[in-house]
């Protein structure tokens, strides 16, 4: 099997799995409505959706455009079904590729990214399942106010380490988007709630800076 056919087969399997996931996802509310004979009606759903869809749908489009080049073919088909991309799947895939010394876009990168995302998805699912089954026993620990700051700070804990790896290697590209984001969040702290929308802004700035530095042969 050559590289092209492996990629092509990955797309075929990926499409089958993801369309099945979409149908299954829609079957969840449908089956609950049928079982309880409780159809909510159009208006409550539309009103609820109006409160979240403008941001969710925008972030959804942004995530697809931003993350699929990093995750690869199988990684994208899998990662977008299992979710938690920013805080888990993308860092898992990139860190694994870094450790294995392979690059995204190559077959080796594709394989390592898939293995990382699949492993991460299985472990996450099992941890949540175990947590649900043992909730009574675990709730004193996971509900503990002592441990709350640890989980409140999971993103800084993750991105601090990642920053050392990636920013130190690409500091010339990183300075401009970093300064922009720090100033922006200092001036408008409320933007922290919709950080997903700012990801492509940061990406556009760093791509622009990278292009200029590359053309001037500075990187």
């Amino acid at each position, binding site marked *: 099997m050559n590289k092209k056919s492996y990629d092509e087969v990955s797309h075929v399997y990926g499409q089958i799995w993801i369309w099945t996931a979409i149908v299954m996802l829609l079957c969840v509310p449908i089956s609950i409505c049928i079982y309880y004979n409780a159809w909510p009606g159009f208006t409550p759903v539309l009103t609820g959706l109006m409160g979240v869809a403008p941001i969710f749908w925008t972030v959804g489009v942004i995530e697809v455009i931003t993350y699929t080049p990093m995750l690869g073919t199988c990684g994208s088909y899998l990662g977008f079904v299992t*979710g938690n991309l920013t805080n888990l799947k993308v860092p898992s895939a990139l860190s694994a590729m870094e450790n294995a010394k392979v690059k995204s876009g190559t077959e080796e990168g594709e394989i*390592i990214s*898939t293995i990382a995302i699949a492993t991460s998805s299985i472990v996450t699912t099992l941890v*949540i399942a175990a947590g*649900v089954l043992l*909730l009574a026993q675990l709730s004193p620990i996971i509900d503990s106010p002592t441990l709350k700051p640890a989980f409140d700070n999971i993103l800084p804990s993750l991105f601090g380490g990642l920053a050392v790896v*990636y920013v130190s290697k690409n500091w010339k590209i990183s300075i401009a988007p970093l300064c922009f984001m720090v100033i922006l969040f200092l001036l408008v702290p409320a933007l922290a709630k919709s950080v997903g929308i700012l990801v492509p802004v940061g990406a556009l700035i760093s*791509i622009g800076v990278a292009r200029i530095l590359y053309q001037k042969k500075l990187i």
Partner: protein
Amino acid sequence: MHFNPNSGFLYVIAIIVILFVIAQSGFFLIRAYKRARVIGMDMPQVKKIIISTAIFTIAPAVSILLGVVTLSKFLGLPLPWIRLSVIGAITYELPAATSTAKALGISLSETITDPKAYTAIAWVMTLGIMPSILLVPILLKRIQKGLLSIKNKDNKWGELFVTAMFLGMISAFLGMVFADVRSGLPGFIPLFVLLFSAFLMALCGILYKVCKMEWMKNYALPISMIGAMAFAVVITPLIG
């Protein structure tokens, strides 16, 4: 049919969804692992990647479990379990539930009893998250084609392009820790935690490169993340 947000029927649906996720992940894991062997990749390194990814995943997974617990107080366990195992994240699901509850004029402080309100929330959670999963099968090939054409024209620029995209994402999340610093010393906690995580990662890098501790390469990220989370537990009572 009497409605109960923790009914056996809802648990059965949750288990079907969870089995699907495990089956899909297992399928791609086995397929990629076999392919790695076929093309002659370093299999001991691949195994190390699996172990280090599994360890790295545990802390964020517990954080996701916290999201399930938070939502379960209002929605029962099965629906949050489903939603946070497939696509969802607490940052999506909580606002979706809140928005719908507000629209229906119900409180989030007690367990839901109205089946129509429950199904309305289930629909909003599902439809609110649909674009990202729907767009992947539609756009993935086109995005990859675009990226390939950039790489074919200039391979080095193609690689820089993807790196720059990731740096853009990191920048947004690094900048976010500065959001609360104007509110006083407690607002600096995320920044201190981030710096401590960076410090631990740098320390791991030194141990790997200078002290030749090879194993450190695969475990630096879980060590820096869990260490920084522990640091947050220590400093929050002191300055929070």
